[in-house]
């Protein structure tokens, strides 16, 4: 019961408890010292952050003024700069230019298969057309704009609301991949890779890729090998397997 009350502190301070809950909470405040201290602390935290948020733009203007005044009243003038001959820089500059040219030549010839293997698919609106507006458009836009932190939040909410809809969990997993959270990618996509939905092969591929990032090679091989020959991801999966075998042989 008391644990439950700690979770109600924010709602209490926001005035969101029902009259009965509020009464119960206030009675507990009188007898539970820890609850009382935690509530007072959260109230203080809220006040501090509110005040700082409210004065944010004013502080920026004040900082600009103070920086200017600092220059006049505190900072020492710059030491006079010596004139330098360009010759001092000639040989080092030529050396740097030569190195850059070599690097450019090598990079034109070298292709990094892993770089292209990491490319996430775009989500087409048709794949998530539902009978009602459920906020999926915002989530898809964020994902396709590579705002993965936002798409994680939005697809998390959609997954919670529509527990039966595998597609939202799948897109959440891809969003985790985009935000380079390999552990969450695997946890989210592995169940889909183990299932029979139309997302199975794509989920297997990105599970394998995330596992390789974490050097969990056995897992990576298992899921890359499970992708069927008819799948669009088969060729990429074979390249990934070759890369893993090469890494393991080092």
């Amino acid at each position: 019961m008391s644990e439950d009350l700690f979770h109600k502190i924010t709602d209490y301070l926001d005035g969101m408890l029902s009259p009965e809950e509020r009464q119960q909470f206030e009675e507990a405040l009188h007898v539970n010292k820890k609850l009382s201290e935690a509530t007072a602390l959260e109230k203080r935290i809220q006040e501090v952050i509110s005040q700082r948020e409210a004065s944010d733009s004013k502080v920026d203007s004040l900082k600009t003024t103070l920086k200017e005044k600092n220059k006049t009243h505190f900072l020492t003038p710059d030491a006079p700069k010596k004139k330098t001959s360009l010759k001092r820089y000639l040989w080092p500059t030529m050396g740097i230019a030569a190195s850059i040219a070599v690097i450019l030549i090598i990079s034109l010839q070298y292709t990094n298969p892993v770089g292209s293997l990491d490319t996430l698919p775009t989500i087409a609106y048709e794949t998530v057309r539902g009978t009602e507006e459920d906020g999926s458009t915002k989530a898809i836009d964020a994902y396709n704009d590579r705002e993965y932190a936002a798409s994680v939040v939005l697809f998390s909410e959609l997954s919670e609301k529509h527990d039966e809809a595998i597609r939202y969990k799948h897109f959440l997993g891809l969003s985790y991949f985009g935000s380079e959270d390999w552990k969450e990618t695997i946890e989210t996509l592995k169940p889909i890779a183990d299932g029979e939905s139309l997302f199975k092969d794509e989920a297997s591929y990105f599970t394998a890729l995330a596992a390789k990032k974490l050097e969990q090679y056995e897992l990576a091989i298992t899921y890359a090998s499970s992708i069927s020959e008819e799948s669009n991801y088969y060729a990429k999966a074979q390249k990934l397997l070759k890369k893993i075998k090469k890494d393991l042989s080092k």
Partner: protein
Amino acid sequence: MHSDKIFLTYLKENDIKGINEIYLLFAGKVKGYILNNSGNADDAADIFQEALIDIFHLANKPDFVLTCPFEAFLFIICKRKWLNELKKRSQKPVTELHDYVSYSEDSVKVVEVYANQIEEEHTIMAILETMGDRCKSIIKACMGTDSQSIIAEKLGLSYAYLRKKKSECMSQLRNLVADHPVFKNK
């Protein structure tokens, strides 16, 4: 309220002439103190600026009352900040010069209370910045002036989800703050 409250007004209103007066009257003594205690001009400039911003935040609180001379208030805050900075750099102060500014023991006690308050507020904001992006944006948005239903819409979340995440994030922040030495050792 002390007659020096005009200096608080200069800060609150970003009054350029008034702020220039603050620098003319008080910057030299702070600079002198820091230069004589292992610091340089850049250090003095930073400390003076930070102290003025802290006083700005205090001055905006409805219950703040200046009960000692502004000079003493400002100098004691600067001195305390500099001594903390030297501690962080593992340097002991070379000298403890008291004669740059004269102030009473009562002034020290008053300022110490506010200086502790400032330190606690800095700690809260610093801990907030260490939290994940999701919690940070939800907490900051909810502490603004918009209603939570508008915030939910702006963030593309349902109202119920926003409330749930806000409660979880505030609980996390509260626990982190409570465990910090600045709050734990009170």
